């Protein structure tokens, strides 16, 4: 068997955007999204219900409809990262990467030798795949969150670390440290997000950030090409619109 291709790595390489869909951490809901041709699902293990019990089922559903499954792990920790990959994630997202050392740890945990030292185990993605350990690195997507002021101070060094596909600027946690808690679209927060994305791109790296209904046009003009977007945003908006239409009758 051939290893499953990582669709979002391919898309980014071709210069295309990626929209990672969050809020659908249910395998049936993932499969039902198929007609929309999604490229990526984001399963939330830092703040929500993705865990060792459901990553297998969630990632299988995404694989079947040919969307790349990403899991956000709770923290930059060696075993947590490769365990999520072992269970079927094709991409790993790591919050609160603050230093070059943190970023190096993420790569060491996500990639087998010679790039890293990911724990040796055949992932769901490797079942029956010949030469899995040699091919896995190419199909493993790695994303780190830049979401602390200290990470901004260390950004130049962090950006020196190879084998990270996306540097994701997290407006939520930054808004907290910048004194505008929860105001992701506050001008000062947006300025920091924009400046950080500009620095990431200037080094030839790929940037990501949040695209919500209130800011997606802005976010898609920052230079970032990877976006985290919520299904809930769309549901809230569609349901509210229906109710308003009904109330006006």
């Amino acid at each position, binding site marked *: 068997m051939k290893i499953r291709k990582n669709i979002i790595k391919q898309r980014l390489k071709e210069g295309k955007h990626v*929209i990672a869909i969050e*809020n659908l951490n*249910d395998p049936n809901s993932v499969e039902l999204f198929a007609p*929309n041709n999604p490229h990526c699902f984001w399963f939330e293990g830092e703040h929500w219900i993705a865990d060792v019990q459901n990553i297998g089922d969630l990632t299988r559903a995404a694989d079947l409809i040919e969307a790349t499954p990403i899991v956000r792990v709770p923290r930059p920790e060696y075993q947590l990262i490769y365990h999520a990959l072992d269970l079927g994630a094709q991409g790993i997202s790591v919050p609160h990467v603050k230093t070059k050392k943190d970023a190096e740890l993420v790569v060491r945990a996500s990639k087998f030798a010679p790039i890293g030292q990911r724990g040796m185990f055949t992932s769901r993605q490797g079942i029956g795949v010949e030469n899995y350990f040699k091919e896995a690195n190419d199909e493993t997507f790695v994303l780190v969150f830049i979401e602390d002021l200290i990470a901004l101070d260390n950004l130049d060094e962090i950006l020196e670390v190879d084998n990270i596909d996306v540097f994701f600027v997290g407006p939520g946690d930054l808004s907290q440290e910048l004194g505008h808690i929860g105001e992701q679209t506050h001008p000062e927060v947006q300025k920091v997000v924009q400046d950080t994305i500009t620095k990431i791109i200037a080094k030839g790296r790929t940037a990501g950030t949040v695209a919500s209904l209130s800011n997606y046009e802005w976010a898609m003009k920052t230079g970032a090409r990877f976006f985290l977007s919520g299904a809930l945003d769309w549901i809230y908006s569609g349901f509210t619109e*229906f109710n308003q239409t009904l109330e006006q009758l």
Partner: protein
Amino acid sequence: MMELRQNIAKKRLYEGKTVTCFALWGYAGSDHIERLAPIKPHAIWMEGEHGNVDFGDLPNQTRACDIIGSTPILRVNQNDQGIIYRSLDLGAMGIVVPHVNNKEEAENVVEGGKFYPIGKRGSFTSRQGIGVKDYHNLANDQTMLIILIEDIIAVDNLDSILEVDNIDVFFLASGDLAQSMGFPGQNDHKEVQKVVDESLKRISAKGKISGAIGNKGNVKSLYENGVKFYLCDPRPYMAEGFQKYQDFAQKALDK
């Protein structure tokens, strides 16, 4: 003692108000349900006729509905009294029964869904009755029964079906109706829509409440035909939102 939880959807219907019910189609599970709190659907439809919701899921999912103040409704898989009251026992406050085709079948729903003296629902204290004094005398008022009119034979029998009391919503489901009329998959077929419209009017004319799947396109026509209970499918909302972002990103970014 504790008060019996009010059936918000049912209360609204009998006040002459409309109800919007969120279908857990393509967005499901108890932790997902709770995140619907900001849009506060009057009711939430768990899918047990075609979907994966089963008895074991009901307590957690109905608790999630209860905590955000939405009435938990389950569509069951068959018109069976045991299935109906076990679903109520586990926390559902409304039951939707598919393929009710004649008066006897409608009466079966009421018999399974209501305690004495209206019916003969098995005697047991539901999740909704924990700590409620006099639960067995109060439960019927807060229990909502919905039947699906979705076969052409049911349309033929509609007048006698409408004679059955204690059915809160007569729900026109065009998918199966289309199939039974020889137009599988063609819910929007002119002849199907004609039968739907006429049936909705017949329900209103008898002073009963009707329901249907509502969307931006059909809401005006449904409303004019007297529909009070609107089932909302979130999949088109998600499809539209995703498409909007993707179109914008393709223009702004893709090489």
